[in-house]
């Protein structure tokens, strides 16, 4: 049996994850009193959250809980109505080169071949060899000259991952990137993301409605409810984690119960 530490952390300050193999070059993120409202509708209310360098955080919640909005704020695509977002101690202002985002759709440019699409993530003038290297990392080394339309959904997300990786980001934001994939492809992608996260050492924030995915990938799972952080779980299971595991299943059930409001 895996020694899975199942516990609810009272506060969300958390120690760095259990010794990732690569030296963590991940960003430290701090949100304090973050509010986002559109008109009189409050989407996010007084969010306080810390992400340690190299940590893998998952945010789960029902649709409309504000989880994607939160990620967009951290990506610098939107600005908070109040509060502070600090990245490595500096106040966030717009999008940052060290932060990369993966969306639910791959969002590849259909008119550029795969290798050229990967280079979108790199500064102008980056050689094609650099794209080739990251494509190799995601297992698509032989598809550099294909058009996006020729790839499957899972392969397209791999390209999107390669595009995010090419600039060696320090914070990776994952906005339900596996939501549109079939179940088997999704498991493969989870393995790939876990492996790359471990070797690259970036900090990661995954927004998902798939609790099993959150439990499998994250060091910590945060439940977002009506724009507030309702609960936090820490997951100290060793990595690489198996695909099925009784303790993980129990934790998954507990989080699901919390999400569905059938607590206790």
């Amino acid at each position, binding site marked *: 049996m895996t020694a899975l530490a199942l516990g609810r952390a009272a506060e969300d300050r958390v120690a760095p994850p259990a010794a990732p193999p690569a030296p963590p070059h991940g960003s430290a993120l701090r949100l304090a009193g973050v509010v986002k409202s559109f008109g009189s509708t409050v989407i996010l209310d007084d969010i306080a959250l810390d992400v340690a360098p190299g940590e893998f955080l998952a945010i789960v919640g029902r649709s409309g809980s504000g989880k994607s909005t939160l990620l967009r704020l951290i990506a610098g*695509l939107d600005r908070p109505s109040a509060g502070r977002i600090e990245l490595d101690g500096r106040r966030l202002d717009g*999008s940052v080169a060290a932060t*990369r985002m993966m969306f639910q759709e791959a969002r590849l440019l259909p*008119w550029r071949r795969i290798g050229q699409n990967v280079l*979108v993530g790199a500064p102008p003038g980056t050689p094609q060899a650099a794209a080739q290297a990251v494509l190799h990392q995601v297992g698509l080394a032989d598809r550099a000259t294909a058009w996006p339309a020729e790839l499957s959904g899972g392969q397209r997300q791999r390209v999107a991952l390669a*595009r995010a990786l090419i600039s060696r980001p320090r914070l990776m934001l994952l906005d339900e990137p596996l939501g549109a994939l079939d179940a088997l492809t999704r498991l493969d992608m989870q393995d790939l993301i876990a492996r790359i996260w471990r070797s690259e050492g970036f900090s990661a924030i995954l927004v998902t409605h798939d609790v099993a995915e959150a439990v499998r990938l994250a060091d910590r799972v945060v439940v977002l409810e009506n724009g507030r952080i309702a609960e936090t779980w820490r997951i100290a299971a060793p990595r690489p984690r198996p695909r099925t595991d009784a303790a993980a299943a129990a934790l998954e059930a507990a989080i699901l119960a919390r999400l569905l409001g059938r607590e206790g």
Partner: protein
Amino acid sequence: MRRLAARALPWLVPALLVALWQLGAAGGLIAARLLPAPSDVALAFWRLALSGELWQDMAVSTARAFAGFVLGGSIGFALGVLNGSSRAASLLLDGTLQMLRNIPHLAMIPLVILWFGIDESAKLFLVAVGVFFPIYLNTYHGVRTVDAGLVEMAESYGLDRWRLFRQVVLPGALPSILVGFRYGLGIMWLTLIVAETISASSGIGYMTMNAREFLETDVVVLGIVIYALLGKAADGAARWLERRCLAWHPAFAAGAAS
């Protein structure tokens, strides 16, 4: 063999029509004064080609057509990009342009003759106005309907405005822009024919109007055939451009029927 048949098939009906036409003219069913036989038209072509008159008129017409196209097309493209990407510009200008669009540009011929007389600038102006609207409208539409997700991705990846335009907006709008381009080419010839027929001292339109004065029906028909061929050539060029520029697009990929 089958591929050869597929290539030949579209030509079957035109070939039959020409054959019937020739037979009808030779049998006296069609009066040569009203519609000369295809062979007579071919002879007229030969005669005018040898004298060099034909090439000169064709060159004049083509130069006029393309000068007007470049002028109207580039203004239409620039305004389409501007209004498509700036909401303020669109609010300021689009309403006026949509209003002007509803004026048939050929209705302006009397006014244009008053303004410019019958010299080159009149024809240039008419062609430019005619070409402007399809290119403007399709560029505007193309730029506005570029996938917002791609633009957001590009912004989160820190692309500056020029790279955003060059790598995301322009290629995204290109299918629509090329539709406008193709449409504009058609209007270009149409406008030029009308303008040259009304007032010109050179060009294919002048050649045919002149021939009408002398009842040279064969030259008149030749002029019409040449317009058809020039139009077809322009359309072919536009399709070639589509296939080349949109190789990534499943609907235009090499080998796909367009």
